[in-house]
């Protein structure tokens, strides 16, 4: 079963890599400094993974690439006859290579209604507050790979951000099988057994990737590059499918790894990476009894 999952994951990653290598988008709006994004892909939003990269600033929104206008949502937002999409006023564009881009929470849709094709850089409207939002409202941007049936982290397909992310490691927590949680400090003693490692998810921006090594051996990598669906729930693919409840089991906790530690001295290294490859890391030495 695990082998089958690994093979499926490998194929999905291969497909994703082929899409990424062939294709790249432009930013759908001007980036605000110092904080261009108000929330990141796969970040906790409500009680689910966010499928969107959410931008800051009320500015014109443009098509990230040329494509075919698939659908405009939100025209009937006040009608009882239609469901209330939390995307508000939104445009969905179909691109080559089976990709869709979604531009949501627009204040208005500023392009001719009879337009079929749209060119890269064409204005779609102003980012706004028409969708579900907290704070000032802003553009919600999504990228969907319809061939591989996955939501893709838009940052993977975007030009590099020149300003560094506010990447922080945050506090690291160790939870045993009984659910007892302790904060990891530089030197600590604990009992041998299986544990789950978490980080404080409120610290800095959402990392793109996290890794955990135990005594120099890589134990688990979690990469937030895509969300897949299994039994009606989205998941992050790692050693096994990690649904929302595994990644964010409770407030302020983000999953890092499941580890097993044996008696003796154990060094755990935790690393968090942003999309540019910048890393923040810390090592913890445990005296395992």
């Amino acid at each position, binding site marked *: 079963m695990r082998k089958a999952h690994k093979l499926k994951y490998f194929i999905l990653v291969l497909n994703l890599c082929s899409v990424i290598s062939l294709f790249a988008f432009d930013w759908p709006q001007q980036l605000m400094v110092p904080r261009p994004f108000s929330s990141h892909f796969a970040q906790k*939003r*409500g*009680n*689910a*993974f*966010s*499928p*969107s990269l959410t931008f800051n600033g009320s500015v014109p929104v443009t098509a990230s690439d040329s494509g*075919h*206008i*698939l*659908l*405009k*949502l939100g*025209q*009937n*937002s*006040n*009608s*009882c*006859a*239609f*469901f*209330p*999409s*939390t*995307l*508000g006023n*939104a445009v*969905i564009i*179909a691109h080559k290579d089976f990709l*869709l881009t*979604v531009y*949501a929470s627009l204040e208005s849709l500023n392009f001719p*209604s009879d337009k079929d094709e749209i060119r890269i850089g064409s204005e779609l409207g102003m980012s706004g*507050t*028409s*969708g*579900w*939002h*907290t704070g000032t*409202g802003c553009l*919600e941007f*999504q990228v*969907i*790979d*319809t061939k591989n*049936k*996955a*939501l893709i982290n838009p940052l993977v397909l975007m030009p590099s951000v020149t300003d560094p992310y506010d990447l922080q490691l945050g506090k690291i927590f160790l939870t045993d099988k009984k659910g007892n949680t302790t904060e990891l400090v530089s030197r600590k003693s604990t009992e041998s057994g299986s544990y789950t490692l978490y980080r404080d998810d409120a610290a800095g921006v959402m990392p793109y990737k996290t890794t955990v090594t135990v005594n120099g051996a890589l134990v688990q990598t979690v990469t937030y590059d895509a*969300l*897949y*669906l299994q039994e*009606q*729930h*989205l998941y992050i693919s790692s050693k096994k499918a990690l649904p929302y409840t595994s990644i964010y089991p409770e407030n302020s906790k983000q999953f890092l790894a499941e580890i097993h530690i044996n008696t003796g001295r154990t060094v755990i290294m935790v690393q968090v990476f942003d999309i540019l490859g910048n890393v923040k890391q810390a090592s913890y030495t445990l005296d395992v009894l």
Partner: protein
Amino acid sequence: MKIKENVLLFGFAGLVFFIAYLLFAGLPLEKEIQFIPKWTIDIQDKYASFIHEKKLEDMTASSVPGDALPFKLAQYLGYITPSGDVPFIFSFPERASISQTFWTSYTSSASNTPVYSVKNTSSFTLEESGFPHIVNNSVYLFYPGGNSFGRYSTEGKKLWTAEHWSPITSFASSDAGTACGYADGDLRFFNTKGDLVFSMYPGGSSYEVILGIAISADGSYIAAVCGLEKQRFVLIQLNGKNSKIVYHAYLDSQKREQTYVHFNNAGNRVFFNYDGGLGVVDCEQNTMMKIPVKGSVCSISELESGTLTFVLCQNEKTWTVLALESFSNLMGSFSFTADNAFMSVAGNDLFIGKDSKISKMEIVKK
């Protein structure tokens, strides 16, 4: 000689015409539909008197008669009785959803949203973020991001959720289950327990997307408008995982926005809006009629007797009500100008909301 023959001929023809006239004049004329105005009320006046008479805390505990109709008009929601009373009215600041039994008002950052029952004083809270959507006794919450929703019990307990990799573009609910259409063209049907009964890509177009969807009340059929280049209507007969398309029709033109699809009460006719018209499909005969319509269809209701169906269409600020006999014969129509409108049918009465006014018309055939 020739003149004499002509006089005889014209005289004979005149006699025949006279006899025929006498015969046909005796036959009763075909009955015509008449809209008899009964009353018109101003909901702003009703609201002013309502909040004057009632304390704010009473507003959620209002006793609403069983025959009262829910309405949502501009920034007001409430219930109106056949006699024109408004037992409950509420002015909502941003967004709202209302059904025969529940109502809620919420904001763009909705979280922990209270839902009120009109039958008694109880209310419950949807303890998550998102936009509530109430269909009869079914309560749904659409979560942030636009690609997931949850169904809740009438006590506010989360029953089940469904996520997807692409945004929800159409949604329908009936006692039989919940149907959802997505931006990538996936069409899914969930039973009342939330189990995925089937997932299907109707396909047949260059670009796949589900623009509108409906389920018949008994769960026999799902209908959808889907795809671009070429857009088409599909009728799916539900049979678990073996559900299949039993009728389809390509459309001459296409829409790129959410599209209204609706089954009649008996579940043997389905109406759908296409670019430039209203399609009416007979689910038993697999035939389609087209009725030209300007603008978008936003509501369809039929009389209790099933003899007449009313269609409300919006073309910018012009609203048109069409009356259809036998589901597809256009018997008449009238139009009005308004920013907001609604239409509802109860028994043999038609209720039309126009900005701040609601009118009742009795439908008779004389």
